């Protein structure tokens, strides 16, 4: 599946899950900051992505925490005073290769804003390629 085909399918999922307009769904749009996604919408989006990209022979399964690491606040090595530490940022970059961290100032509450339409497309693309390899 090409990058454009993945993007088109993801746009359909986001239109349905978030009730946003097609022209709002651009690669740079943040799911939370621009498209109004709340935490529970991510559960809906994950379910819809699994349904959309699964085929009879190849189920597309997204594990909990795979798209977005959980339990960050519980770990003082990663978060101190509401800010992601250097170790935390290194962990995020390793676990979220689909996300562009350029310009990110380390504020914990802004981590969710890093998930953009483009990063979602990249996430699915990487998983499909890994499954095909």
């Amino acid at each position, binding site marked *: 599946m090409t990058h454009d085909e993945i993007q088109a399918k993801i746009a359909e999922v986001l239109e349905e*899950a978030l009730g946003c307009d097609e022209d709002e769904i651009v690669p740079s749009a943040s799911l939370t900051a621009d498209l109004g996604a709340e*935490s*529970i*919408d*991510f*559960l*809906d989006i*994950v*379910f819809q992505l*699994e*349904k959309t990209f699964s085929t009879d022979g190849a189920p597309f399964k997204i594990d*909990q925490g795979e798209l*977005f690491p*959980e*339990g960050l*606040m*519980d770990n003082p090595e990663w978060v101190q005073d509401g800010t992601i530490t250097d170790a935390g940022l290194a962990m995020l970059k390793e676990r979220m290769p689909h996300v562009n961290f350029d310009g990110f100032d380390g504020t914990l509450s802004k981590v969710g804003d890093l998930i953009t339409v483009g990063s979602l497309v990249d996430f699915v693309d990487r998983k499909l390629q890994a499954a095909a390899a």
Partner: protein
Amino acid sequence: MRWMWIDRIVEHEPGARLVAVKNVSLAEEHIHDHFPGTPVMPGALLIEGVAQTSGIMVGAVNQFREKVILAKITKAMIERDALPGQTLRYTASLDRIDEAGAATTAAVELRTNEPDDDRWHAIGQVDLIFSHVDQNMSGLDFPEENFVFGENFRAILAASGLVPETV
């Protein structure tokens, strides 16, 4: 008044499907205000009935150990009013379940109970997302006690001839 918007579970295929019925009654206080002189089952309470049906189906998958909370109404379409004396039937199907939660779909049907009409009429669909709230992304803590599947829920199961351990 008890917050019970289904009267009886009539079918259960564990992990796949659960069917419940709700009899709409003039004895329900709210129906006289919705609307004065024209009593109609409120759509929001119909959705609550679907949520209870679907939620029991989801809870049964993990023997009611998880706190199953309605998180999102993905889709709700109701095309016909349900009136006193009529019966609603909710057929919930499990679309997807994992550690974080579940997605369900439900068909809503209506039987008028009129002498010349014994059919179930399809009148809508309600798709929902449930969260297993102890597994929530924000890491918030909730009480140990399972406040979701409490006394009312047990009463519904008992009235249906079921006990939690066997559902």
